[in-house]
C-alpha cells in the first residue's frame, strides 16, 4: 500500500525529514511514536501533499505509484486521508455541508456518481451515531466552537464517510477523555479492514491498548530509527526516548 524510501524533505533551508524508510502493507496498522519535533506531523503532511515542502530525495509509492507530484486533492480522491493533529475551523460552513462537498468531490474525481441528499444523510446518520456525533453538531459550522474531543471525533467521522485506503491519524488521541478515547478507538477499529492501511501517530501507549498495531516505529530527528511489534510501545513507555535521540544525533 505505502512504501516510503529514503525520503528527505525540508522547509526553506531547514531539513526536517532526513531519510525516512517505511513500508505499510495493505491491511496493516502501523504506529509511529517519537519525541516532539521529530517530524511525525511533517511526514503526514508530506504524504498527503501539503504545499511548502521541498522533497529533495526519495520516493513515496502509494499502491505502487509515485505520488510526489500528485496534488493533494487527487491524493485524497485516491484514498489518502489525514486526521489532523489540529483540525481546522471553517466559519459559516455547516459540518454537514462540508462532509457532503468533500464526499461528492472525491466521488466525482473517481468518476462515481454523486450521492443524492437522502443517501448522503443516511450514511452520515449511521456513522455519526457510532461516534456520538449529534445532529446538532452536524448543523454547526465545521469545528467552530467544538471542544478538542469533538474535533477529533469529527475527524474520525470524516474518515468513516470517506472510506480511505490509507488513513493517517495524527495524535487523534490527544485531548480525548477516557470515554471519548474508547469511542474513537472503537470507531477506528471498526474501520480496520484487509483493504485499508493505517498509520497511527501517537505519544501514548494507552491508544495502542485500544488500537493494537501490527508494527510500531520510532521516529527521531527525521528518521525511523527502530521498528518492532506492539511490545516496543511498552518499552518506550517505560524508558522514554533518551536512547533514540542520542542514536539519531
Amino acid at each position: 500500500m505505502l512504501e516510503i524510501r529514503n525520503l528527505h524533505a525540508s522547509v526553506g533551508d531547514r531539513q526536517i525529514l532526513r531519510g525516512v524508510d517505511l513500508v505499510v502493507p495493505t491491511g496493516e496498522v502501523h504506529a509511529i511514536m517519537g519525541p516532539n519535533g521529530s517530524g511525525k506531523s511533517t511526514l503526514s503532511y508530506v504524504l498527503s501533499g501539503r504545499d511548502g515542502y521541498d522533497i529533495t530525495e526519495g520516493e513515496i509509492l502509494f499502491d505502487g505509484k509515485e505520488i510526489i507530484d500528485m496534488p493533494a486533492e487527487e491524493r485524497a480522491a485516491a484514498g489518502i486521508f489525514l486526521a489532523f493533529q489540529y483540525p481546522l475551523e471553517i466559519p459559516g460552513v455547516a459540518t454537514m455541508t462540508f462532509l457532503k462537498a468533500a464526499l461528492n468531490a472525491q466521488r466525482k474525481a473517481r468518476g462515481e456518481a454523486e450521492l443524492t441528499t437522502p443517501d448522503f444523510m443516511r450514511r452520515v446518520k449511521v456513522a455519526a451515531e457510532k461516534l456520538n456525533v449529534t445532529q446538532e453538531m452536524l448543523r454547526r459550522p465545521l469545528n467552530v466552537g467544538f471542544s478538542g474531543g469533538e474535533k477529533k471525533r469529527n475527524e474520525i467521522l470524516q474518515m468513516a464517510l470517506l472510506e480511505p485506503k490509507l488513513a493517517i491519524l495524527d495524535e487523534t488521541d490527544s485531548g480525548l477523555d477516557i470515554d471519548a478515547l474508547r469511542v474513537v478507538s472503537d470507531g477506528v477499529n471498526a474501520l480496520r479492514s484487509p483493504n485499508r492501511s493505517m498509520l497511527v501517530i501517537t505519544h501514548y501507549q494507552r491508544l495502542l491498548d485500544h488500537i493494537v498495531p501490527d508494527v510500531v516505529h520510532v521516529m527521531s530527528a527525521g528518521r525511523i530509527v527502530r521498528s518492532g511489534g506492539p511490545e516496543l510501545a511498552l518499552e518506550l513507555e517505560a524508558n522514554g526516548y533518551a536512547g533514540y535521540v542520542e542514536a539519531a544525533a
Partner: protein
Amino acid sequence: MPAVQETIDQVSLIDVDQYKYGFVTDIESDRAPKGLSEDIVRFISAKKNEPEWMLEWRLEAYRRWLTMTEPKWARVHYPKIDFDDLYYYSAPKSTKGPKSLDEVDPELLATYEKLGIPLREREILAGVEGASDRRVAVDAVFDSVSVVTTFKEELKKAGVIFCAISEAIREYPEIVKKYLGSVVPTTDNYYATLNSAVFSDGSFVYIPEGVRCPMELSTYFRINERNTGQFERTLIIAEKGAYVSYLEGCTAPMRDENQLHAAVVELVALDDAEIKYSTVQNWYPGDKDGKGGIYNFVTKRGDCRGDRSKISWTQVETGSAITWKYPSCILRGDDSQGEFYSIAVSNGYQQVDSGTKMIHLGKRTKSRIISKGIAAGRSDNTYRGLVSAHRKASGARNFTNCDSLLIGDKCGAHTVPYIESKNASAVFEHEATTSKIADDQLFYCLQRGLSSEEAVALIVNGFVKDVIQQLPMEFAVEAQKLISISLEGSVG
C-alpha cells in the same frame, strides 16, 4: 447545502479568462448624438413624450450639474471621464411596448437566456407557471427602455403600480411629482444631479395603503450599447402599512472602453410600511489586466418617512471596475428601522468603495449594518459607513459589523467608519474583523478532496452566509454562484 454544491459545480465549469457574459447583442439603437448639452436633455425628454414640468426639472438639474465637480473622497482611482464623449440616450429599435412575449424581439429573449436568468423567471417570461407558488415579476430594462412587463394584470388587481418610470411620469404625474427627488434631491451630488438631468428610464413602484405586494418584483439591467452612459432612475413608494420586496440584478457585455453608470434609486416608506431592496450586481469588471469594465457611481437612498417603517438594503456586488455606492437610510419616523447587508467582492484590479449611511432622526430608531468585503487579486475593497444620530433621536441604536476577508497578499481591505452622535442616549456598536484565507484552512479542504477553487468557494460562502440569508431564496443561489465566479483564479 445544495446551493453550495451548485456553486462548486458552477465554479468547476467555468473558463478562467472568459467573462461569462462577455457578448454583444446587436439590436440597432436609436440614440442621441454624443455629448451633453441642454439640447440633449430636451431630446431625451422629447423622446419620452414628457410633460413640460419634467423637462424643466431636468434642465434645472443640468444647469446645476454644470456648476459641480466630481467628488474625490472615495478610495478609487480612474482616468478622467470625458463627459462630452458619451452618449446619453439609446433605445432598442422598437420602443412600442409589446402586448405579449410573441411580440418581443427574439434577440432579447436570447439575451436573457445567455444571461442565465433563473429558470423560474424564464418560465414566467414564457408564460409557464413555476414549481413554486412564489412568483417573480420581471420588468426588463433593456438598454434604457422597458421592453417587457409581465404580471401587470395581477399586480393591478392588488392596486400595485409597477411600470417604467417614463410611463409613470405620463400616467401618474401627481405621485411622481410628489416623490421624485424627495429623497435624493436634484442637487444631492455630482452623479445624482447628472442622473436627474439625463435619466433614461427605470422602474416605478407604488404600493397602496395596507397592500402586501403579491410577488417579488425584479428588474434586470443590462448595458448594451457601446459608450452609453446608463442613467437609471428608480422610485419606490410604500404607502402606510404596505410591503414590497424588490430585486435588481445586472450583467454587462465585455467592453474595451469604460462604461459609466450613474443610477439613482429613491425609496419612500410611510407609516408601518416595509421595503426590502436587494441587488445582485455583476457588471463587467475589466479584463485580467484591469482594462475596461464598468464605472458604477450610484446613489441609493431610502427614506423611512413614516413611524415604524422599515427599509432594508441587501447587496451583492461582484462586478464593475469601480464601485462607488452607499445605499442609505434616513430614519425619520419614530421607531423606524434601517438595515444594510452587503457582500462586496473584488478581484483583479477592481476598486470598491461602498458602504452605507444610517441617519437617525426619529426617536428609538434602529439600524443594523452587516458588511462582508472580500478582496482578492490586486483589488482594493473599502467599507465606508456613516452612522449619525440627530439631537432628537433619543434611544437610537445601531449595530455595525464589518468583516473583511483577504485572499492573497496583493489586495487591500479598508474600513472607514464615521460616527456622529448628537444625542447622549444613542447607542452605537461597531465590530470589525479582517481575516485571510489561511493556507492550513485551504489545505484542510484539499486534503478532503476539494479543489482549491471549490475550497475558496466554500470558505467564502461560509464567510458571507449571514448576508446571503437576507436575499430572497430564489436569488441566494445565483448570488453564491456570482461570488464564486468572481473569485475564479484567485488562488493556486
